[in-house]
C-alpha cells in the first residue's frame, strides 16, 4: 500500500489490513498500528489545530508525551483528547480532528495566528477587565470558550470501568530493559511482584530503537520473549500490560489505568478500563526517559518530530515517517536514528549538530562521512518555514553563513530527561546534572528505587552495576547482562535551549509549549513583568499546563529562564509535577460507584410490600422510604398526602418506621452515662417508661432527638432520627472511650435487628387489640409513654406507646425476619377500621400540625432547645451533660435569637412555601431586614388551610403579631405569628 512501510517489522501484522475513518475519509492501516502510525503510513502529517492560535500541527512524538496529536474518537461515545500516538486503531474506528472549523485544512480560527501579536502572555488577565463586570461572564468567556480549546465533551456517555486493589511487596513500573531484568531477578523469591507496562509489548527501548543489538548474545526480541515467558511462568510475579501508572501517592500507593480494549472496539457492558489501586512495600521505577525538543522559529510545523520518536515509528510500528529527513541535534541520542536509517537503506538529507566536529561521537562522525550525508557541525537551525507543512529550513553554519535546505521533514533532539514525574509525585527530590543537562532523581522520600534512564543512568554499560547495587536489599543473585550496542554507550550533550531567529517580527514564534501555544517570547515577557519565580511563570504563561504537562519542553523552559536570570537551573527549580501523569477518564475514577451503585441502598425488611403496594419512595440518607402510597396512578402526591393525613386523624394509619436508629445501652453506669449524653434526666424515671429526649452538641445546639426507654438503671434502649443513627452511636462511643472511660457502659446498634411499625389514629386500639389479643391496651394497663415486652408466636416483641402524629399511637418493635408477617397481619386486621399505610410526607405533615420538630429541617445546627421552647427537657439539676455549659453562653442567652414559631396566612386561601423569608415590611425594599424563614409548611386537611413552622428572631415574643412572608416574585403575603402548635393543644388525644 505505501512505500513508507517497513514490512519486516515484527509488531505490525501487515497481513491484517484495518479500515478506519479520519475526518470522514477512509484510510487503511494494519493490526498493531496506532492512529498516528497508520496516518503516517498514508503520508498524512497534519493532525490538528493548536489551542490558541489554531496553527496547523502534526505528530511530534510517538508516545504519551505527545503535545499536538489529540483527536476525538467518534466511535467511542465521542471520547475527546485521545492521543493519536498511543491509541490503537480497529476496523471501523471513526476519528475526528479537534479545534478546527469548518475543516482541518481550512480553519477560520487560524485568524488568531494573524492577530497573535495581541495575544501575549497574560492576555486574558489584562484585556477582559471592562467595561462592566458582567462583560466577562456574558460576552468574553462564552466567545473564548468556543474558540479555544481541546475536544468536545461527549454528550451520551456510559463507559463501564472497575476498580481492582492490589497488595504486593514490590511494584516495578516499566517493563523495558531494566524492568525486565529486575523482574527476572525476582522470579521465585518470597516477594509478590507486580510488573506494569503501558505498552502491549514488553521491552521498551529494545523494541523502540536499534540502540541495543543483542542481549546475552540473543537478539533483543528473543531475549524479551524468553524473559517474559519465564516471568509469566513464575508464581510470584504478575504482569499488567496496557496499564499506565498515573499516580504515586504517599505510602507507596500507586494508581494505574488499564485499557481493556487495545486495538479493538470497546464492547458495551464490558469493562472498558480497570483502575488498579496498588499498595506496595517497595516501588522500582524503570519508566525510562523522554526526549526534549528545541525552540526555534516555527518549530511547530507539521513534519517536525523528535529523533527517538522517528526511530520508534520505524522500529516499533514499521513505518517510515519520511524517506528524507534532516536531523538537528545537540547530543548523542540522535546517533541511533542515523544508524537505523542507514541500516534500512535510507539516509538523512542532512545532519546538523550544534556541537563542534570533535565533540560529535567518532562513530557517528564516521557513519555520516562514509554515507556522504551533508554534515553541518557547530550549526543551528534558525527557522523552519512552510504552508501547513514543513517546506524548508534555514541553517546557520559554523562560519555564520545561512543555508537554505528544502525538506519536508525534520527530526529534533534537544537532550533526554529521566521521566521523573512519578518520582516527584512521590515527593522525592531532584538534582540538576550539569553534565547531562537534566534533572535526575537525587533523594527518595519513600521506599523508591529508580533504575536505568529513569534514574538518570544513561550509560548502558553501567546496567549490571546499578541493578546489583540497588536490588541487593532483596537478597537477589547478582545479574550479569551482556549488551551489544550500536552506538556509543555514554551520553553526551552540549547546552542549547533556543536558537534565536534570523529576523524577529511581531509574528515570529518559537514555541516552548506546543499544546498551550506558549512561545519563548511569552517567557521573556513574563520575566520582564516580574514573574521570575518558576511557579508564577508557569501560571502566568500557562507553560507546561497542558494535558501533556510539558513532557518534551518543560526542562527547556527552565534552561531558558536560568539563562535569562543568570541563575543556576537548580536555583530556578522545577514546578511540581502533579498527578495524574496523563489524563484519565472520570469513568475510570468512578468505577462501579456510579449509576445504580452511586450510593449504597438500604432497605427496610418491609420494603417488598411497599413496592407491591405501589409506594413512591424517598431517599432518606441511604434508606429507601415510602414517601406516599397513591391508590391509583392518577392520584397526585398532594392528593395522596391529604387523603392519608385525613385518614390518620379520622381512622388510623400505619407507617414503616424501621429506619429509625435504635441503640441498646447497658452497663453498671448506664444511667450516669445517659444523663451525660442527653439533656433530660433519667434518674427518676421508672423502669418500663420512656421519655422524649434531646441530644446537644458541645456548642449547645440540638443535634438529635429520640425516645429513651428505660428497662432499668443499667439498661436502656434509645431511638434516634433516621439520619442521626450513626452519628449518635459514634458520639456515645467517643465519649465512653475518651471522656468517661471510667464509666462501665456498652452499646450495640440494633437498628437493623428490629423493624418499627407505627400505628396511630383514633381507631388504633381497636386494631392492635385484635392483632395482640393477649395484651391489655387499656389506658390504665398501658399508659402513654410506657413500653412492654411481649411474645408474638414465639417472637419477642416490644410495644411502645408513643406518638409522632398527635393521635394515640403505638410503635411495635419486631425482629426484622418476622416484620413482614406482622405488618401484613396489622394491615389485614385493620382493614375493617379503615387502616391505611402512610408515607413520610404524611408523617411530616401530621407532626408539624402538632408542632413536633424534625431535627435538620426545623433546626439547622444553630438552634438550642431554648430556641425551640423546649426548656422543660433540660435536666437543670444535672451538673453536666453534653453542651450544658453552652446554654448559658452570652450568645445562647441572647434575646434576639431565632426561635421556633407557628405561621398562619391571614388570608386563609394564601399558600406559603418552605424557605420563604419572614419580614416586617409589606413592601420589599432592598435590603429588607429578615426576621427568619419558614422551615416546614403544609396544607392541613384538618384546618383546611396552609400552616407553617418558622424560626424567626425573637419569635417567642412576637407571637400574636403580624408579619409578611416574601415570595420569589418579590411579593408579600401577610401572616400571623402564632404558637407552634395547630392541633390538640391540650394533648387530649395522646392519652385517650
Amino acid at each position, binding site marked *: 500500500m505505501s512505500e513508507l512501510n517497513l514490512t519486516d517489522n515484527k509488531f505490525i501484522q501487515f497481513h491484517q489490513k484495518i479500515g478506519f475513518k479520519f475526518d470522514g475519509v477512509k484510510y487503511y492501516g494494519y493490526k498493531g498500528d496506532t492512529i498516528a502510525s497508520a496516518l503516517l503510513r498514508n503520508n498524512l502529517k497534519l493532525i490538528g489545530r493548536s489551542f490558541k492560535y489554531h496553527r496547523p500541527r502534526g505528530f511530534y512524538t510517538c508516545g504519551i508525551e505527545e503535545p499536538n496529536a489529540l483527536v476525538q474518537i467518534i466511535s467511542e461515545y465521542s471520547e475527546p483528547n485521545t492521543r493519536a500516538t498511543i491509541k490503537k486503531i480497529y476496523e471501523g474506528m471513526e476519528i475526528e480532528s479537534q479545534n478546527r472549523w469548518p475543516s482541518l485544512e481550512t480553519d477560520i480560527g487560524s485568524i488568531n495566528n494573524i492577530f497573535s501579536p495581541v495575544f501575549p502572555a497574560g492576555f486574558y488577565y489584562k484585556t477582559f477587565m471592562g467595561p462592566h463586570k458582567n462583560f466577562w461572564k456574558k460576552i468574553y468567556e462564552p466567545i473564548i470558550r468556543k474558540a479555544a480549546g481541546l475536544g468536545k465533551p461527549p454528550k451520551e456517555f456510559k463507559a463501564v470501568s472497575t*476498580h481492582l486493589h492490589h497488595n504486593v511487596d514490590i511494584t516495578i513500573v516499566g517493563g523495558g530493559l531494566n524492568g525486565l531484568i529486575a523482574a527476572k531477578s525476582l522470579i521465585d523469591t518470597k516477594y*509478590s511482584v507486580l510488573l506494569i507496562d503501558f505498552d502491549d509489548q514488553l521491552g521498551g527501548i529494545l523494541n523502540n530503537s536499534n540502540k541495543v543489538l543483542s542481549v546475552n548474545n540473543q537478539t533483543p526480541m528473543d531475549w524479551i520473549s524468553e524473559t517474559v515467558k519465564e516471568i509469566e511462568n513464575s508464581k510470584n510475579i504478575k504482569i499488567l500490560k496496557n496499564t499506565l501508572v498515573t499516580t504515586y501517592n504517599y505510602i507507596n500507593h500507586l494508581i494505574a489505568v488499564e485499557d481493556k480494549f487495545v486495538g479493538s472496539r470497546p464492547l458495551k457492558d464490558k469493562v472498558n478500563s480497570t483502575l488498579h489501586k496498588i499498595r506496595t512495600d517497595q516501588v522500582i521505577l524503570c519508566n525510562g526517559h523522554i526526549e526534549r525538543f528545541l525552540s526555534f522559529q516555527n518549530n511547530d510545523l507539521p513534519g517536525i518530530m523528535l529523533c527517538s520518536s522517528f526511530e520508534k515509528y520505524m522500529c516499533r510500528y514499521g513505518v517510515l515517517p519520511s524517506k528524507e529527513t534532516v536531523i538537528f541535534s545537540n547530543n548523542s541520542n540522535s546517533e541511533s536514528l542515523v544508524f537505523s536509517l542507514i541500516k534500512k537503506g535510507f539516509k538523512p538529507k542532512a545532519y546538523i549538530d550544534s556541537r563542534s566536529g570533535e565533540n560529535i561521537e567518532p562513530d557517528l562522525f564516521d557513519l555520516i562521512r562514509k554515507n556522504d550525508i551533508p554534515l553541518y557541525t557547530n550549526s543551528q537551525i534558525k527557522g523552519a518555514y512552510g504552508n501547513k507543512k514543513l517546506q524548508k529550513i534555514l541553517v546557520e553554519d559554523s562560519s555564520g553563513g545561512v543555508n537554505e535546505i528544502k525538506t519536508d521533514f525534520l527530526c529534533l533532539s534537544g537532550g533526554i530527561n529521566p521521566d521523573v514525574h512519578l518520582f516527584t509525585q512521590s515527593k522525592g527530590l531532584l538534582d540538576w546534572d550539569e553534565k547531562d543537562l537534566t534533572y535526575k532523581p537525587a533523594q527518595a522520600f519513600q521506599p523508591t528505587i529508580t533504575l536505568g534512564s529513569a534514574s538518570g543512568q544513561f550509560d548502558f554499560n553501567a546496567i549490571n552495576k546499578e541493578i546489583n547495587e540497588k536490588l541487593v536489599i532483596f537478597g537477589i543473585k547478582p545479574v550479569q547482562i551482556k549488551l551489544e550496542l550500536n552506538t556509543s554507550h555514554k551520553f553526551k550533550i552540549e547546552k542549547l535551549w533556543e536558537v534565536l531567529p534570523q529576523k524577529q517580527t511581531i509574528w515570529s514564534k518559537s514555541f516552548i509549549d506546543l499544546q498551550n501555544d506558549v512561545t519563548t517570547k511569552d517567557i521573556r515577557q513574563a520575566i520582564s513583568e516580574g514573574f521570575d519565580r518558576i511557579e508564577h511563570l508557569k501560571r502566568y504563561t500557562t507553560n507546561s499546563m497542558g494535558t501533556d504537562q510539558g513532557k518534551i519542553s518543560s526542562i527547556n523552559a527552565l534552561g531558558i529562564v536560568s539563562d535569562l536570570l543568570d541563575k543556576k537551573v537548580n536555583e530556578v527549580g522545577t514546578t511540581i509535577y502533579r498527578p495524574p501523569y496523563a489524563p484519565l477518564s472520570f469513568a475510570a475514577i468512578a468505577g*462501579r460507584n456510579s449509576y445504580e*451503585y452511586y450510593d*449504597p441502598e438500604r432497605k427496610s425488611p418491609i420494603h417488598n410490600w411497599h413496592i407491591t403496594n405501589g409506594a413512591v419512595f424517598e431517599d432518606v440518607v441511604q434508606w429507601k422510604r415510602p414517601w406516599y402510597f397513591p391508590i391509583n396512578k392518577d392520584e397526585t402526591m398532594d392528593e395522596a398526602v391529604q387523603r392519608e393525613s385525613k385518614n390518620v386523624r379520622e381512622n388510623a394509619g400505619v407507617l414503616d418506621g424501621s429506619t429509625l436508629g435504635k441503640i441498646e445501652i447497658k452497663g453498671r453506669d448506664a444511667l450516669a452515662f445517659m444523663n451525660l449524653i442527653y439533656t433530660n434526666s433519667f434518674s427518676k424515671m421508672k423502669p418500663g417508661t420512656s421519655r422524649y429526649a434531646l441530644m446537644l452538641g458541645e456548642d449547645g445546639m440540638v443535634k438529635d432527638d429520640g425516645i429513651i426507654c428505660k428497662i432499668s438503671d443499667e439498661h436502656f434502649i434509645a431511638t434516634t432520627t433516621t439520619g442521626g443513627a450513626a452519628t449518635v452511636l459514634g458520639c456515645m462511643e467517643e465519649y465512653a472511650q475518651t471522656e468517661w472511660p471510667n464509666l462501665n457502659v*456498652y452499646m*450495640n446498634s440494633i*437498628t437493623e*435487628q*428490629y423493624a418499627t411499625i407505627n400505628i396511630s389514629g383514633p381507631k388504633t386500639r381497636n386494631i392492635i387489640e385484635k392483632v395482640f389479643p393477649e395484651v391489655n391496651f387499656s389506658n390504665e394497663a398501658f399508659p402513654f409513654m410506657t413500653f412492654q415486652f411481649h411474645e408474638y408466636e414465639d417472637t419477642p416483641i416490644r410495644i411502645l406507646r408513643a406518638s409522632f402524629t398527635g393521635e394515640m399511637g403505638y410503635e411495635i418493635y419486631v425482629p426484622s425476619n418476622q416484620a413482614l408477617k406482622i405488618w401484613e397481619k396489622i394491615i389485614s386486621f385493620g382493614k375493617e377500621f379503615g387502616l391505611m399505610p402512610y408515607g413520610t410526607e404524611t408523617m411530616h405533615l401530621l407532626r408539624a400540625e402538632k408542632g413536633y420538630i424534625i431535627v435538620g429541617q426545623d433546626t439547622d445546627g444553630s438552634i438550642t432547645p431554648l430556641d425551640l421552647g423546649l426548656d422543660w427537657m433540660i435536666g437543670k439539676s444535672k451538673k453536666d451533660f453534653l453542651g450544658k455549659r453552652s446554654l448559658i453562653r452570652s450568645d445562647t442567652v441572647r434575646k434576639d435569637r431565632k426561635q421556633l414559631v407557628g405561621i398562619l396566612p391571614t388570608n386563609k386561601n394564601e399558600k406559603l412555601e418552605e424557605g420563604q423569608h419572614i419580614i416586617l415590611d409589606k413592601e420589599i425594599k432592598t435590603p429588607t431586614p429578615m426576621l427568619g424563614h419558614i422551615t416546614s409548611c403544609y396544607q392541613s386537611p384538618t384546618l383546611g388551610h396552609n400552616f407553617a413552622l418558622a424560626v424567626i428572631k425573637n419569635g417567642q415574643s412576637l407571637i400574636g403579631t403580624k408579619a409578611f412572608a416574601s415570595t420569589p416574585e418579590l411579593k408579600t403575603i401577610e401572616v400571623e405569628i402564632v404558637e407552634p402548635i395547630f392541633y390538640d393543644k391540650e394533648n387530649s388525644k395522646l392519652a385517650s
Partner: protein
Amino acid sequence: MKDVIRSNGIEIKKIISQQIVLRSSGNSDFNGVVNKALKLLPPSDNLRIVTNDNFILAKMSFDQWNLVFKKDIEQKKFHKLCDTFNKSSSILATNLTDSQIFFQVGGDNATMILNKLTHFDFREKSFKPFTAAQTLLARIDCSIFNLDNVILLSCGRSFSDYLEDRLIDAVNL
C-alpha cells in the same frame, strides 16, 4: 442458605445465622460466663477466632465479641442463652440474628474478586487463618472471618440486597 453465584473461580452463598454480639471488658468473669455457656474460652487477642462444632467466636474489637452459630438452635434456648449472658450487668449481649446477613465466599479467585470491592489486604501474612476483621467493602461496613478454607462475610441486613448485587457484579465483570 441460598446460592448467590458460582462462576469465574468463586462461589458465594448467602446465609442467615444466629448471632449474638457480646460487649464486655473481657475480664475473668466474662470468660467464666462465656466458657460455662459455650464450652469455649473467648479469645483475648484482638481479631482472633476460636471455633468448635457449634460456634464461631471472634474478638472483633477491644470490647466486642461476635458469636456466630454454625447451626441454628431452638428460639427458646437461644433467648435463654442471651439472658444468661445479660444477667451480668457488665456484659451486654444483643441478639443480632436479624441484623446481619452472611455471605460465604470460597474458590481460588475469591480474594482477587473481593479486591474489586475492597482495599483489604487478604494476603496470608496480613490476614491469617482464624482471624477476623471489620473493614469497608463496596463502601459499606462489613465483617470478614477467615475460616482458612473459606471466607465468611457479613453486612447489615438493610444493605444485603445491595451487597449481593455488588458481589454478583464483581464476579461477572
